[in-house]
């Protein structure tokens, strides 16, 4: 059994809209996590108009200057397909310079059911069905702009000649992971495999949530199989599970509060069973068991978002009563 020894902290960025946190509180929490052995990454989310929130690039710039050690991730970068790829590559290069090589990009399609991503995309002339192709094209553009000078690119959506961006990222290569959470039950077998094969072919790592029991493990098993097919070694391929936590002696209460939190955060899109699959909940012992199960399913690292109104209190419990015991 592989168990994570370090964890990520996901900042509840949309919580600024419903009284959970403020930008200042998030920066303080990140600074605190940065000083602890338990954490090796801090994450923010991203969306422009589909699920708006404080902008990921600005927030990461601030995080880069109040932390010293942790990797700084965006997971997932949902507006990646609509943002101008030259502008994005340029801003990301500066973030990597400010953080001295700690940036971790987990790009995704940003598809949202119910029309939110379509509405966002319309402002850039991007239809939902084009997002996957844009994700791939923009990943290729970023890599070229980060690695070379005088780049010429001819793509389906973006073409340019002789472009050099500076400063370049400090990391070379600067990692690009793909975040995806395809549901085997809801997609056709071929669409499911296509989504995961993209990860196996072009990504430097994988991030995923788990919104039904064992979905992380099922997807990871398939990625392992596809990585081998592509001639890549799964042992050297990183992944991270994006997970929630709510510590409460009464597990029902923990799940109720998590559901309320997620309803405020995303609108009422997650059923109680999805919330349960996605949240370490209950007593510290129960949370430890759930995190161990996730690790047992293949999660090499886990980043946690506290789905509670009591961020500071829960953070304390998490770092004192849960995380140190997941591996021992």
């Amino acid at each position: 059994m592989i168990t994570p020894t370090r964890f990520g902290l996901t900042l509840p960025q949309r919580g600024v809209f419903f009284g959970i946190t403020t930008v200042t509180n998030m920066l303080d929490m990140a600074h605190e996590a940065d000083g602890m052995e338990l954490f090796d990454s801090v994450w923010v989310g991203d969306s422009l108009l589909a699920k708006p929130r404080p902008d990921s690039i600005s927030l990461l710039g601030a995080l880069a200057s109040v932390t010293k050690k942790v990797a700084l991730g965006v997971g997932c970068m949902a507006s990646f397909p609509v943002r101008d790829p030259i502008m994005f590559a340029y801003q990301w290069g500066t973030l990597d310079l400010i953080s001295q090589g700690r940036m971790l990009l987990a790009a995704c399609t940003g598809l949202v059911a119910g029309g939110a991503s379509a509405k966002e995309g319309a402002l850039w002339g991007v239809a939902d069905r084009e997002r996957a192709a844009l994700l791939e094209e923009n990943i290729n553009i970023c890599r070229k702009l980060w690695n070379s000078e005088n780049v010429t690119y001819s793509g389906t959506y973006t073409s340019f000649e002789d472009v050099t961006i500076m400063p370049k990222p400090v990391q070379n290569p600067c990692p690009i992971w793909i975040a995806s959470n395809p549901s085997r039950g809801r997609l056709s077998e071929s669409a499911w495999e296509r989504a995961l094969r993209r990860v196996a072919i072009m990504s430097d790592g994988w991030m995923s949530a788990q919104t039904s029991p064992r979905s992380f493990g099922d997807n990871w098993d398939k990625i392992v199989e596809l990585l081998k097919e592509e001639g890549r070694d799964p042992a050297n391929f990183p992944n991270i599970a994006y997970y929630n936590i709510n510590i409460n002696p009464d597990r029902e209460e923990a799940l109720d509060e998590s559901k309320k939190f997620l309803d405020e955060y995303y609108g009422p899109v997650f059923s109680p069973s999805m919330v349960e699959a996605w949240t370490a909940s209950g007593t510290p012992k129960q949370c430890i068991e759930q995190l161990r199960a996730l690790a047992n399913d293949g999660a090499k690292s886990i980043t946690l978002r506290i789905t509670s109104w009591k961020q500071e209190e829960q953070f304390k419990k998490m770092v004192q009563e849960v995380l140190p015991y997941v591996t021992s």
Partner: protein
Amino acid sequence: MTVDVKFGLTLPNRMVVLGAANMQDIIRMGAYAEETTLFQSLWVGDSILAKRRPESIALLAALAARTCSIRLGVGCMASFPIRNPFVLAAQWATLDMIAGPDRMILAACIGGAGGGGDWEMEQEAFDIPTGHRVRRMIENIEALRALWTLDKASYEGKYVNFSEVISEPKPLTKPHPPIWIAANPRPVNNDTSVIQKATKRVARLSDGWMTTMVTPQTFGERLEAILTARSELDLDTNNFDNSLYYNANINEDKEAAFAESKKFLDDYYSTDWPKEIVDLWVAHGSPEEIIGKIQGFAEAGVKEVTIRLTSYDQKAQLERLINEVIPAFISRT
């Protein structure tokens, strides 16, 4: 004898890509300037591809998280006309949240020509002809104000169009973070109408004016024209802000001060600046000479002088600025 003038410090972010400074030193220099309490603002420059440097928004975010109360500006934001207004609205509003209210200043400008920049690369990469930049700047200013202040914003322009867009987060600064225009117009083929147009644009659209490479006399005349135009439009003139982007190199050996400044500017812009521009643009020489130059601008109506030190020894020059120049402008009671 001195009149009231405030100081800003311009952080030379382009030195990073020239290998003459590192990013952490630039950020530390900003934090240190705040500690001295002698500066009311920090400014960084901006350009995506034409005059490459660390990106202004990411850098301002880092500075905002590291400082408490000093104003933070981009001057000028030469990429303003080519930035997407929805992304810029969200990024700048987030900077405003990180910094806290009334600290961020966005000084937009047209960009697109001069200063040794590779404007062709930028124009072609973003497919925005130089001739479209003025219109795009105007539309982005109006679009940002709409996105920041209206629950559901709509805008109809030639290049920017949207309807009922909900832009979040909203900035903390009310009614919205100030948008200045940086303009230093020069006659084109002896045609001075460019100057009148720029003056009107600044008067009508901006919350403040930044300029550079001018004499005190020109500064005074243009400021008066802007304020007159604002009065005619029934816009406030008392709180209308301004800042002069100026350079300094403090050295009793005036020739050495000139030589280092010229080298610095030539490197910074990959161009060969004529002597008269360096003379006009850089206060160089003894502290007394520099105090005199700044005094001249203060008398012409400059509210803030932001200083870029045209030197490869930023630390030493900053100490001289702090100890030998700025104290002359602190009124003793």
